[in-house]
């Protein structure tokens, strides 16, 4: 049998052929946390919504309150949407993820998280029992974090128009007087630390989606970091900034830091903590672990004299046992992140390009 393809093809191209060097539609890569996401924010969102707080692109907005707030300098406010598929995965679910994620965005800014709101978009056909499990999980997560969910909304969309459930959470916290963490503050000489193994969450999700089986269960590392950040800041108030390397992985966080602070960054591949099974999964799927999301880890930038002490403090905390110093901030090659590879030669660590398509051939 033969088929004519002319008409369908033109229909899919649209009435005029796309200049194929530019996108007219959102593609999956726009959501990957890498280069395309950055461009979408910079070229589409910021120009329309221009204001210095948004433009700073911190993980949370650090707000002055008219009339001031007693006992605290500033309010922290953040929002995040959760569209993870599948909604239930090894080590967590979309509910607890939505709580931890926003708590962490506040925590890495030095804030004590206090209140959350949640908006649910539910797909027609979602099992009520599944929704129950998700919401119960959120309840437990909030209690464990000491935050209160004070406002919520639900909407339902037609079957096929939503991936079972999407959750958007917003959060408010308080930043103590005197703390002013920012990704614009890194200086040459500063040390870079991470609080534990990288890429666990992304690989746990991919493993379910791609049907990867593991010898020993590989769980997402989704966890709230507010207690870890509290002890870190108490021990070391001179921390310049912290970030949680979620979508786009550590590579995105490092590049954002290098660009915002106009500094270079040098890291060493052999110091990066990675679980062997995560390493193996990345190898097999042709993924760079630096581009894979973590959901219960943070990166911290600290003056060199404080690094060893901070490392000890982190390692004493249950969520920081595998903390490591992975590199430093340098004056050379500002805006660029360079890694010394396992074999000794050097390479650049760039942000993820497009969607992370598994390498095959």
């Amino acid at each position: 049998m033969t088929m004519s393809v002319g008409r369908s093809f033109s229909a899919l191209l649209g009435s005029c052929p796309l200049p194929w060097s530019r996108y007219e539609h959102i593609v999956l890569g726009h959501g990957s946390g890498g280069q395309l996401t950055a461009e979408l924010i910079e070229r589409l969102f910021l120009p329309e919504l221009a204001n210095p707080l948004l433009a700073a692109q911190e993980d949370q907005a650090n707000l002055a309150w008219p009339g001031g707030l007693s006992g605290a300098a500033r309010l922290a406010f953040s929002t995040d949407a959760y569209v993870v598929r599948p909604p239930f995965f090894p080590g967590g679910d979309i509910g607890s993820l939505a709580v931890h994620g926003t708590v962490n965005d506040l925590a890495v800014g030095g804030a004590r998280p206090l209140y959350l709101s949640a908006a649910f978009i539910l797909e027609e056909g979602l099992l009520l029992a599944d929704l129950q499990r998700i919401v119960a999980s959120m309840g437990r997560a909030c209690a464990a974090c000491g935050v209160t969910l004070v406002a919520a909304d639900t909407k339902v969309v037609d079957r096929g128009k939503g991936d079972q459930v999407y959750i958007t959470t917003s959060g408010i916290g308080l930043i103590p007087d005197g703390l002013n963490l920012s990704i614009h503050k890194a200086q040459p000489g500063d040390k870079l630390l991470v609080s534990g193994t990288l890429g666990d969450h992304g690989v746990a999700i991919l493993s379910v989606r791609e049907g990867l089986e593991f010898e020993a269960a590989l769980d997402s590392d989704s966890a709230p970091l507010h207690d870890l950040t509290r002890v870190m800041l108490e021990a070391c108030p001179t921390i310049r900034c912290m970030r949680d390397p979620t979508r786009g992985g550590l590579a995105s966080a490092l590049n954002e830091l290098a660009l915002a602070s106009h500094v270079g960054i040098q890291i060493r591949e052999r110091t990066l903590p990675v679980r062997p099974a995560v390493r193996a999964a990345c190898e097999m799927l042709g993924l760079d672990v630096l581009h894979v999301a973590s959901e219960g880890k943070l990166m911290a930038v600290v003056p060199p004299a404080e690094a060893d002490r901070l490392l000890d403090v982190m390692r004493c905390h249950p969520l920081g046992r595998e903390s490591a110093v992975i590199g430093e901030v340098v004056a050379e090659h500002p805006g660029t992140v360079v890694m010394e590879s396992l074999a000794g030669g050097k390479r650049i660590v760039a942000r993820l390009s497009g969607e992370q398509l598994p390498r095959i051939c």
Partner: protein
Amino acid sequence: MKYIAEYRQASLVERLVELIRAEATQSWTVMEVCGGQTHAIVRYGLDHLLPEGIELVHGPGCPVCVTPLETLDRAHAIAALPNVTFCSFGDMLRVPGSRTDLLQLKARGADVRIIYSPLDAVKLAAAQPDREVVLFAIGFETTAPTSALAIQLAQRGGLRNFSALVSHVLVPPAMTAILESPDNRVQGFLGPGHVCTVMGYTEYEAIAKRFQTPIVITGFEPVDLLEGLLCLVRQLESRRAEVENQYRRAVQREGNPRARQLVETVFEACDRAWRGVGTIPRSGLRLRESYAELDAERRFKVERMASSEPAVCISGSVLRGQRKPCECPAFGRECTPETPLGATMVSSEGACAAYYAYRREGQTTLGQAFRA
């Protein structure tokens, strides 16, 4: 991971670099054939560890990069059909055709699936008898046996809704074309490790002899690449031109006879256009007549499309080892992985993509970082 981690040890890499340094008495230009080898060299910064005189030029061994434009345009046209489920390896999704790419077609509603194995396409065909399932069968000799088995299984299973768009390519004719070119600078080759796992390396003996060029069949890890390079340098220094096997843990001289046999049964050699390089005689594989019914090229008639490449793209010279990605005026500017002008920027094993990911704008900004 066993058989991987050991081959990345910095101490061994250092040792091999020392040996190369000690034994190379003059400048040599060598080519690593496979995209996977290029990727490893750039990712681990191996070429920067070598003495100044040893130049590594990148070869055309990236099947995604060399898939002809006409084939891509045909693939896109087929994928656009409403009753087609188009199955492709992930790498091909962003490769630009004359007007679009598979990812953009997917964004606009085409049923494009990423597969890890050609067997996934066969399973899809069995599960969806009312859909036309098309396997985009690209790759070198390494992948040909996997397509061959998938196609044979589909035929045996009576899956009338399965077909394959075949665009396999062969390495030896490409190496010959490079060596025959009047402006060839390549004096030795790091040969394709996984291709030879399937094919063995007897075909390379004739090439080495005819062109008096040494060829060392090499693996993909830093220790493999440097050991292969050491063997090559030794041959060059002593004016030998033989085929050696560095990748002995995975390659035997006769390759995998079973795999070769099935490839012979399903495919036959044909002329093939290599994107950016031109037509190389007998350098491709196509389905034999006995499998004509499963040939997507025959099943889906496509209007002649005007295929056109952007003038500024230098993919061709990059694939032939004549220029480096950073020498391209569009590199990192108009041409990025998000907005690629050529396949070498899109394929994860394309030289331009590797430079973009691991090197960026030329060597000057990085010079100080890498020598630091």
